[in-house]
């Protein structure tokens, strides 16, 4: 389990030592190993039906670091490695040798993935804070790697948002420690009751706001579109598919873990995230429909899709809502990576980042367009795709609890997604102006986009194992 954290740290450091732009094969090799480890862990957790624990260095709490993996963590780990591996292959072909933007991609990506894995495995609140910062700083570094004024500005904006978010989270951790004298999630959970002191409520509120800021839930989404829309394609894909999911995972973990008694005592609380999620879906989709730049469109689509994740909070009285959330996280993770990666191909080929510039790409880049279409299918929630299963689970759970308006939001969100996805596809089907020429693009780029998109669709045909895995709770 520990190797899931050490391995990326190792190859990231080696990549840094070996010099600018190097480390591609180290990363692909390391990620392959990690993918195997993640599946192995998921297998252990799923087959055993219980969470797995590991005390780093044999120290144990409170001074040592405890790692623990249940179904939710294992699922997120699998998602992370499975998205990161194709992205590494893609990035290897995307950055030309000596390109400035790619100079520090490998080390930063390695640290980012190490941070993510550590976050999913951490069993105490303070350790999670450290991993949050590690993820945040690495992500900011990746956004800034483009080096232009716009990218640096986007990176700074992102940096302040993420620092503010983790600052709020840290304050929450401090209050929790002050109240209970521990930060271990497993120790804390039985201590908290619905009669918890006011301090605990404040702590929970601060952590929730901080994490929502990092997840870019509407109205805290302001930093996301410039950061994700401005970064190079592999970076955008990593950020949109994985990084925002980390803070969502954390909200979910806390919500159904230590703070569950508080949440149960105040049912109205769950409507906060759900209402914001609804607004995120509407606002994000609307902005995506209007966006002129392709990557901005995809970035706003992320804002909208993240909204779905927060719709599950009023439904969390049963395990089925967590399943819906994880399915949506998987669907969006693969599909969004596929979309950004496909957009990267389009931009390389057409030399411009506009929706209008796509005319005629259907003839020249059919594989990429197909990938875009498949990913779009997942975002729209059309069958057979994982997005469809996520939507199905969400709707059925909402019906089960009698929340009709959530059903309407999910359905409306799907239709809005169709508007912006087909806006792009339609443009690609138009006849190109006679004088356009497309640059040649390495085949690897096209096919990795296709693989990511295909996974997002094929997962929709077989979700049984994933659902069983998620059912294993800490």
């Amino acid at each position, binding site marked *: 389990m520990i190797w899931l954290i050490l391995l990326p740290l190792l190859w990231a450091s080696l990549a840094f030592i070996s010099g600018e732009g190097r480390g591609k094969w180290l990363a692909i090799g390391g990620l392959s190993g990690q993918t195997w480890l993640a599946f192995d862990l998921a297998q252990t957790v799923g087959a055993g039906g219980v969470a797995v624990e590991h005390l780093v260095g044999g120290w144990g709490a409170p001074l040592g670091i405890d790692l623990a993996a249940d179904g939710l963590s294992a699922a997120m780990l699998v998602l992370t490695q499975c998205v990161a591996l194709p992205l590494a292959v893609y990035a290897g072909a995307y950055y030309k040798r000596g390109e400035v933007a790619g100079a520090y991609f490998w080390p930063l990506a390695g640290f980012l993935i190490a941070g993510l894995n550590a976050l999913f495995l951490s069993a105490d609140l303070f350790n999670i804070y450290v991993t949050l910062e590690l993820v945040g700083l690495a992500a900011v570094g990746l956004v800034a790697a483009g080096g232009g004024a716009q990218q640096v500005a986007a990176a700074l904006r992102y940096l302040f948002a993420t620092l503010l978010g983790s600052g709020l989270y840290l304050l929450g951790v401090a209050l929790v420690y002050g109240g209970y004298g521990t930060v271990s999630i497993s120790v804390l959970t039985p201590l908290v009751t619905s009669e918890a002191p006011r301090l605990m409520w404040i702590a929970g509120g601060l952590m929730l706001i901080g994490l929502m800021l990092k997840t870019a839930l509407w109205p805290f989404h302001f930093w996301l579109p410039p950061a994700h829309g401005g970064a190079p394609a592999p970076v955008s894909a990593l950020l949109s598919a994985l990084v925002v999911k980390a803070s969502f995972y954390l909200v979910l973990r806390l919500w159904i873990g230590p703070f569950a008694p508080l949440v149960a005592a105040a049912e109205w609380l769950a409507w906060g995230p759900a209402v914001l999620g609804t607004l995120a879906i509407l606002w994000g989709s609307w902005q995506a429909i209007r966006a002129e730049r392709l990557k901005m469109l995809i970035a706003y689509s992320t804002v909208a899709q993240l909204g779905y994740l927060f719709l599950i909070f009023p439904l969390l009285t049963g395990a089925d809502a967590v399943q819906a959330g994880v399915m949506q996280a998987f669907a969006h993770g693969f599909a969004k990576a596929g979309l950004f990666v496909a957009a990267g191909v389009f931009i390389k080929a057409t030399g411009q980042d506009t929706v209008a510039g796509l005319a005629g790409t259907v*003839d020249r880049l059919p594989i990429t367009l197909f990938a875009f279409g498949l990913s779009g299918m997942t975002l729209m929630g059309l069958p057979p795709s994982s997005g469809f299963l996520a939507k*199905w689970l969400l709707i059925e759970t909402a019906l089960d609890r009698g929340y009709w308006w959530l059903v309407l939001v999910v359905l409306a969100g799907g239709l809005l997604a169709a508007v912006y996805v087909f806006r792009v596809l339609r443009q690609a089907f138009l006849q190109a102006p006679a004088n356009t020429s497309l640059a040649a693009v390495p085949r690897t780029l096209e096919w990795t986009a296709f693989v990511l998109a295909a996974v997002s669709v094929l997962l929709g045909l077989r979700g*049984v194992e994933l659902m069983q895995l998620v059912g294993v709770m800490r």
Partner: protein
Amino acid sequence: MNEWLPLAVLASSLLPGLVIFTLPEGWTAVRTTLNLFGAVAKLVLVVVLLAGVSAGEEYGVRFAVLPGLDLAFKADALGLLFISLSAVLWLFTTFYAIGYLEGAPHRSRFFGFFSLCVTATMGIAMAANLFTFFIFYELLTLSTFPLVVHRGTDKAMKGGTTYLVYTLIGGTALLTGIVWLHHLLGHTEFAHTGIVAALGPEYAGQLKMIFLLLIAGVGVKAALVPLHGWLPQAMVAPAPVSALLHAVAVVKAGAFGIVRVVYEVYGVEFAQSLNLLTPLAVFAAVTIIWGSFRALFQDDLKKRLAYSTVSQVSYIVLGVALFGPLGTIGGLVHLVHQGIMKITLFFCAGNYAETLGIHKVSEMNGAGRRMPLTTLAFSIGALGMMGAPLTAGAVSKAWLSDGATAAGMDWAIWVLWMSSLLNAAYFLPILWRAWFRPISAAWPEEHIPARGWRETAWLLLLPPLVTAIMTLAAGMLAEAPGSPLEWAKLIAEREYQEVKLP
């Protein structure tokens, strides 16, 4: 229980389709071989299935997608009716499309999506529950969109967008209904006498709402008024695609969905007890009249045919909504008959456009003398649509009228008569122009010169002739074993087990 046959039916178009996507544009021979191989293989498989099912064999297979949610296929008599129609017409359409698109760009893309489209249709026909039905129903939407916008012109885009708007919103309604039903029942498996009757009377209100959602969802593809707006716009697509939309796949999928929902989800008796059938019949009647009426005023040939489809497909819905086995038989047999007749008409319309550049009814003067065989096929199709004796249309109409009498809905007979008159009013002028008006001085745009008896490319000529012959055969040999009518009787017998058929 035989498991691999249903999968093989799907694979026989899915695999060639996927391979075709990857073929370079120039590999015409490989592509054609693959296409034909897939179509013929499918036909053979379907024949095996037909033989098996009539002998009482069962075919089915299922995979778990989520806990409690299965992707399930079965090949039953009703599904096979649709499958055989699609498989046969797909073969002809493939021939026709190969001829039609000769030398045109983007053929790999076209035939790839074409095969996906047929795969989706097969999935719809073999779906054993609403969940599976929905998956393939939406897949059909997605795979037809690239075909509708194939030409990439502004007009095609507009038609494609309209198509999407209607079908995606319809799909959303359908999904809502299905999840709701799944939530109430815990499953959505089709069964001969329906499944929702088990829920008890306190659910009647909810069930009515669900019925409305389901019918609205599939009604979009079946082009029920007022959900028909996409169909006349989608006729901008190339002729083989129109054939696919109107006869082989799309509107048929909608009509077939209505059949499944009424018979195998609600059960026809239970639907009747909820008073759902009469409103459905009224909608169908309105659609029949309205479609025919609008067709009268279309000068664009394909648009006139499109409105004619709107009208004709609702015959099927009307038959389903007439409570009683006779109406059922009429509706089901029309599912097949309408397909054969309409595909003939669209093939011919495509021939006129490809050969002479004729797109409008007003340009058709004397077309019968320049293209006698095509016009002969067209005439047979058109007469069939009117319900002239000896054609397939006559059989459908006879059973539908008998069904209406038996169900005590005599007004439906008037609707059928009215529609026949309107059909005559919009088809006969075309025939008159084509056969009896003097030949035009110059055709709008002559692409293919006549060579001897061959008025156009033979790949374009043969398919409509064959389907025209089938139209006649289905009419004249209606009582022969293995005819669509006999098969429809078999289904109706299984649906109304107590009733003995004449």
